């Protein structure tokens, strides 16, 4: 299967007052067509910046220096002009953010924002046609009173409702890659589970590849086909989800799994590995690399 996204030896440095500081030390990962790939790690490990580099957003910061290969559907993203890269955003690549309510603009109705998203693919779309399309899309995320939702402001809807809206928006233009940056972390666990299930079904049906960024191993196990574990700007383990969960090879992956709270209780986990082992070389599970 061909790669929708390939990231090769990606480095990110920030220019600060005390010189350069390297945040990503050569990350390589790939997402195949229709595949759901998770990038898992703790806060500050470099998950979210990776997503923003793929979108070309971080490159616009004057203080950021990005090196490494980025290929989307075989095309070298680094050779695109800013305008060409921008043209991919919202059409072929879309993104879902952590908190649905704050990622929608508070002073415009859902309908206005939805129309703007649909016009990324179809610039001449009239508002009536946009509302109709949006209505159909909202139905697909189980919102049935779509007329009310489209004329509502984000603060008038619940977090779960906004999350459905955001999912519908993200898939509206049939992207081939969806980047989901800790989707629904700001929501109740039950609502989060519902909306993730919804998203899972939708991407499966449409064959959209997903780069799923999370710190939540439970969610990742349910959602992803393959997992990349990232720690301090390095990939430390990669492989198919079952292989990693059954036999975590890297000390950091084991620590991350031990940190998942268990319903049987038991307080803070005992770690058998020392922290220096977290910097061990990468563990690759069979079938992990294309």
């Amino acid at each position, binding site marked *: 299967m061909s790669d929708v996204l390939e990231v090769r030896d990606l480095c990110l440095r920030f220019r600060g007052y005390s010189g350069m500081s390297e945040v990503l030390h050569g990350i390589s990962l790939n997402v195949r067509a229709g595949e759901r790939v998770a990038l898992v790690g703790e806060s500050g490990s470099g998950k979210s910046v990776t997503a923003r580099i793929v979108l070309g957003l971080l490159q616009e910061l004057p203080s950021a220096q990005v090196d490494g290969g980025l290929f989307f559907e075989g095309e070298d993203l680094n050779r695109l002009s800013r305008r060409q890269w921008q043209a991919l955003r*919202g059409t072929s690549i879309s993104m879902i953010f952590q908190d649905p309510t704050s*990622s*929608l*603009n508070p*002073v415009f109705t859902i309908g206005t924002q939805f129309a703007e998203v649909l016009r990324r693919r179809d610039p001449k779309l009239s508002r009536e046609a946009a509302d109709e399309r949006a209505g159909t899309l909202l139905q697909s995320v189980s919102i049935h009173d779509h007329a009310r939702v489209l004329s509502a402001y984000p603060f008038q809807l619940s977090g779960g409702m906004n999350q459905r809206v955001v999912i519908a928006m993200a898939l509206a233009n049939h992207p081939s890659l969806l980047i989901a940056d800790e989707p629904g972390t700001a929501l109740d666990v039950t609502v989060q589970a519902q909306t993730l299930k919804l998203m899972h079904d939708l991407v499966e049906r449409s064959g959209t590849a997903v780069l799923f960024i999370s710190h939540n191993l439970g969610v990742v196990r349910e959602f992803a086909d393959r997992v990349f574990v990232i720690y301090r700007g390095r990939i430390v383990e990669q492989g198919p989800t079952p292989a990693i969960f059954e036999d975590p090879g890297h000390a950091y992956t084991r620590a991350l799994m031990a940190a998942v709270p268990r319903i049987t209780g038991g307080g803070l986990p005992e770690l058998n590995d020392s922290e220096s082992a977290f910097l061990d070389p990468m563990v690759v599970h069979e079938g992990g690399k294309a």
Partner: protein
Amino acid sequence: MSAVLRLLSRRLGISLIVLVGVSMLIFGIARVIPGDPARIALGPNATEEQVANLREALHLNDPVVVQYGYFVADLLQGDLGVSLYTNRPVTLDIAQFLPATLELVLFAGVLMVGIGLPLGMWSARYRGRWPDHLIRVVSLLGVSAPSFVWAVILMLLFAFFLPIFPIAGRITDSFEITRVTGFLLVDTLLAGNGAAFADVLWHIILPAFALAVSGIGQAARLTRANMVETYDRPYVEMAQAYGFSARRIAAKYAFKPSLIPSLTIIGLDFAAMLGNAFLVEAVFAWPGLSRYGVAVILRKDLNAIIGTVLIISATFLIVNLIVDLLIAFLNPRIRHSERGVS
């Protein structure tokens, strides 16, 4: 829209209370200023008896509370009394001078919003780059000098050294315009006199700009600050992630949420121009209410002082009311809230 109606009636009620308070305050203050109004009005050659008669006629010998009672009774009939300075009813004086000031201030307000907001928007879009630095310097220059200094500088530069604009007045005397509204920009249009309209526009640009300069700077800085904050919000990042163009984000998706906090201050700035207008009016010999106000204060012309202050306060309150309504219109949270704003 019932929330907006509730807001409106509530604010109108508060405005009325404020006006009553202002009238009492200014009524008291005007009487504390040293000097006998009757003596000033009649001049040094009047006899003691004439002064005493005038004092009696003006109820100046009664207690202040009783005097205030007379004032309110007259006011309710639309009578602000007679000015000792012009010897005409104060209402007539105000009707003559107020439109000139309002026209100047409104025009300056349009300049403030029309130049200040786009500058701020631009500055925020290019934050940290050269357009931002340039606008910062220009804005600080505008804010740091008072409007009468700008009035003098602008007059020297563009009316004296480079005689592009007229140096004083509202209109060239040779134009005969029937005054309908008192706003010459409107009256010349009503008369269908294009040349006169251009002439009035030519006269108003320098004083209005002088009056607006600090407001422009402040509006630009404020809009920039609020927008830079908005640019860090997740919804702007989402707009970027969906490939909305930088121009569209600046002009719409980052601008509108930022406008709401800016507007309150801009409204206050706008109202403050009413006060600043008298210095600019003095420099440009603008026949407005502010100049009249200064003249009557110097002569301790009680009726005229109170009339002028009341009208300016009322205008101030109306401007604030309009700004509040505008905010309610822009901010869906207020428009859709059940209780309105407190």
